[in-house]
């Protein structure tokens, strides 16, 4: 009885907040026919935008994943001064509105900024790939850490300590005991990080300079289609992003088929 109440409650909430809106996105994308949708996402500009989005994600996601695992281990398994503060700081990037992320990066790497001189020496950060990758890393930083930390706390150190006393090296302990226990957490962290990395608009828009065919990611392409009154094209490109996000979850299932829980 309670099970059904819970199921319908949860699904009702999801329907209103997720399923119907997503359904509308797909509907709007194909409103003018599948052919039009396909054309909208296979233009030269769109394909380049997709490439760039995937490239940025391919750099930012692994970086944040490795960092996330390392920091989670440091936060939970070791003691150091300021641990609580670091824990809280990790979430802060999310609290910055994208316009402010752009402002901060301008203040740092822009003309007259602290590291503004780099551009003069030929090291292009802003309005080029490095700036966009940094902005993406900034906004997608916390997810792996946040996923792994509770699980690390949950599993405790018993098994790890046992392995250590039996002579296992730190790497062996990690590979054979810690990582298998946190793999789902890491996996969901990667899913969230990827979704944010491909879908980020605001901060990347500001630091990229939105140069068509060069620094335009797929979300920026969506915006430019919207501005040009090609709304179904904008939705079609959004569907591509949605498919990538769905793809990551599906890929997860394939790699780690879940044992059914009672």
């Amino acid at each position, binding site marked *: 009885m*309670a099970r059904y109440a*819970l*199921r319908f409650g*949860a699904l009702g909430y999801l329907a209103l*907040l*997720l*399923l*119907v*809106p997503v359904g509308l996105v797909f509907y*709007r994308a194909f409103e003018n026919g599948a052919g039009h949708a396909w054309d909208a996402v296979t233009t030269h500009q769109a394909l380049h935008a997709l490439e760039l989005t995937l490239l940025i994600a391919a750099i930012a996601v692994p970086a944040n994943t490795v960092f996330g695992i390392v920091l989670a*281990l*440091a936060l939970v398994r*070791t*003691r*150091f001064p300021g641990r*609580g503060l670091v824990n809280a*700081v*990790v*979430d*802060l*990037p*999310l*609290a*910055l*509105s*994208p*316009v*402010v992320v752009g402002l*901060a990066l301008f*203040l*740092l790497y822009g003309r007259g900024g*602290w590291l503004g001189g780099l551009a003069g020496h030929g090291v292009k950060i802003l309005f080029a790939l490095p700036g966009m990758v*940094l902005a993406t890393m*900034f906004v997608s930083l916390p997810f792996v850490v*946040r996923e792994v930390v*509770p*699980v690390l706390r*949950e599993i405790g150190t018993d098994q790890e300590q046992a392995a*250590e006393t039996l002579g296992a090296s*730190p790497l062996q302990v990690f590979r054979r005991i810690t990582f298998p226990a946190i793999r*789902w*957490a890491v996996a*969901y*962290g990667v899913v*969230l990080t990827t*979704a944010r990395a*491909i*879908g980020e*608009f605001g901060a990347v828009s500001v630091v990229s300079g939105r140069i068509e065919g060069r620094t335009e990611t797929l979300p920026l392409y*969506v*915006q430019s289609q*919207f501005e040009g009154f090609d*709304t179904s094209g*904008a939705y079609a490109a*959004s569907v591509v992003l*949605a498919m*990538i*996000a769905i793809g990551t979850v599906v890929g997860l299932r394939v790699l780690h088929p879940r044992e*059914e*829980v009672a």
Partner: protein
Amino acid sequence: MAADTAALERPVTGRSGAPLARGVATGYLSLVVLLPLAALIWGSRAGGLGAFWEQATRHEAVSALKLTLVVAAICALLNAVAGTAIAWTLVRDRFPGKGIVDALIDLPFALPTIVAGLTLLALYGPGGPFGIDVAFTRTALLLALLFVTLPFVVRAVQPVLLELDTEMEEAAASLGARPLAIFRRIVFPNLLPAILSGVALAFARAVGEFGAVVLISGNLPFKTEVASVYIFGQLQSGNESGAAAVSVLLLAISLGVLLGIGAFRRWRTRHDA
């Protein structure tokens, strides 16, 4: 002699690589997060401390900050309940289409915010198919924020539920405990850290959200204008240091809330065995 003893000692957790790993993590955190934040804080004090305070305490700014923090808090709390319920349904329950629903959870995240705004406006605004029109109200603001923060608590709780050993629950059930009691006394304490993790993320995102709310909230000063929109307006009008000042104040408050959530977790989990 002293050198020999030092070599025999091992760090608390036996991880001799820990300092190096911490160093790498700190370096990465500094480059990606701390440096830009420092530049922002520096930019906000451009006019001096007096100017900072004046900018940050303007009526419109304060109103926007209050609205942002209150709505973000409500959003985070609603997520705690709904997110846990959804995670539970996705892990423990079985129904047709579960896999599909699970795969869609992250979409609010992957969709560009303009699409989120347009879709919510089309569905829950004037001319929407359900006859609901909450556009340009605080309800719309909350709705947009619930949309973009949906995945956090769900994805934070799911892995913990997956790793959770069901022995104790089964034992308690066989002893006659009701489902609610089992949840309250056995499951919930184990989920709390994960829920709080997700809540912290949801709060932070709700505080910083711009794109999804700017279309559907109407941006009326003192009524539905959130901090991110106010800051954007200041920036567009050339008041860069003012924009930075309000952002820094918002950051400081958010940091306080996040520290509070961390402290709460430590306090609650210490009461368990």
